[in-house]
């Protein structure tokens, strides 16, 4: 009884009703308004096929990837308050995050393990879609978007890998840069690609700022836009794949 009165007090007023125009979603129309009346939810349909919510079908892998992307965005912005992309400062900023900044180590750990997790879960999501035949018509295009999102995830992770400016970062990026340098014809194409990526001949200040800008602005924006397209196309292509109905 008391809970009911509290609920009444909280929801039966002009302020609450100005935000949530529908009442408690206890019928189908109000339930549809929960979705259509909310900017963040309305990319989803009001009704979904029962197969869509079958945990054993999707295993939630795509959604987990998306959640990790959200967590990475939030923790990444927090880390940006402390990190300065300079070869003199970067490594010390990492040490500060670890030992001086309140909860700095937690945010760095969330960001690092979240990034590894995102690479793994995007890959697992691709495996799920393949093994259930979800890439087939009419979802061919969305499968292609997904493959590009996997590559973007790899590049997001790679560009972030350099930022701590430790031995692990420096030599990993040196290897990848040398790999890019083998694009044929090596003397022309490979060398210039390597130059573009590093902004020089070795991994130095120019490479660090390039990787930083790619990591915190360019790639996240492109990925966010493509994630939007990816979700929108799920609806346009008839929802998540499911067995043909008898």
């Amino acid at each position, binding site marked *: 009884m008391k809970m009911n009165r509290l609920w009444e007090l909280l929801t039966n007023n002009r302020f609450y009703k100005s935000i949530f125009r529908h009442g408690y979603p206890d019928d189908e129309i109000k339930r549809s308004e929960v*979705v259509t009346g909310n900017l963040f939810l309305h990319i989803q349909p009001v009704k979904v096929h029962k197969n869509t919510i079958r945990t054993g079908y999707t295993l939630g892998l795509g959604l987990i990837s998306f959640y990790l992307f959200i967590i990475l965005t939030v923790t990444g912005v927090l880390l940006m308050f402390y990190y300065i992309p300079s070869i003199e400062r970067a490594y010390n900023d990492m040490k500060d995050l670890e030992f001086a900044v309140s909860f700095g180590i937690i945010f760095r750990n969330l960001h690092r393990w979240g990034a590894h997790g995102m690479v793994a879960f995007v890959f697992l999501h691709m495996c799920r879609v393949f093994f259930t035949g979800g890439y087939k018509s009419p979802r061919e295009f969305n499968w292609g978007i997904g493959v590009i999102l996997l590559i973007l995830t790899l590049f997001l992770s790679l560009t972030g890998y350099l930022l701590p400016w430790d031995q692990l970062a420096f030599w990993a990026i040196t290897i990848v840069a040398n790999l890019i340098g083998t694009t044929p014809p090596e003397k022309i194409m490979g060398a210039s690609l390597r130059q573009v990526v590093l902004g020089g001949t070795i991994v130095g200040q120019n490479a660090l700022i390039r990787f930083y800008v790619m990591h915190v602005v360019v790639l996240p924006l492109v990925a966010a836009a493509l994630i939007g397209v990816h979700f929108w196309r799920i609806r346009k292509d008839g929802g998540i794949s499911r067995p043909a109905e008898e």
Partner: protein
Amino acid sequence: MDKKEETVIFPKNPNKTYGLMELTKTKSFQIEKGPDNTVTSWPHLLFRELILFMGVFIALMIISMVFNAPLEEQANPSNTPNPAKAPWYFLGLQEMLAWAHPFWGGIFVPTVVTIILILTPYFDTSQKGVGVWFAPERRIANLLFTIFIVLAVGLIVVGEFFRGPNWQIFWPWNMPSPH
């Protein structure tokens, strides 16, 4: 219910173009069961999504409280670790570098794999077995993809755990220190 009873409940009106066709016995209205076997997103889908988010966040939080992200010595261009390794997701490519000219493993294979992946649905057009895990009708496609996964993951495992100084093969428990 016979016809007579129906006309009593719903008398025929000659001024209307519609009328009662039939009364049938069912348990109830089609509550929670849309015309195409659908359910409303709220609460069925959105609630599950919320639970999953909490699960992901809690799991990641626990991992982050138990394990610290690696941080080695400050970058030093004059001190090359042996072996220097790429991030784990690129170790499959680095492993292939050891076999032939780096172009083949580092550029050619990933480019071709990406193109094949994107084009797969345009060649594999059969609609059989869609929506079913490991459908028997899709045995060949699933087999090919499994081979791809085993190769990709296998190369990463070899690169991560079995390659030591000078990119020589070592057992993981025999691995010399990289410095």
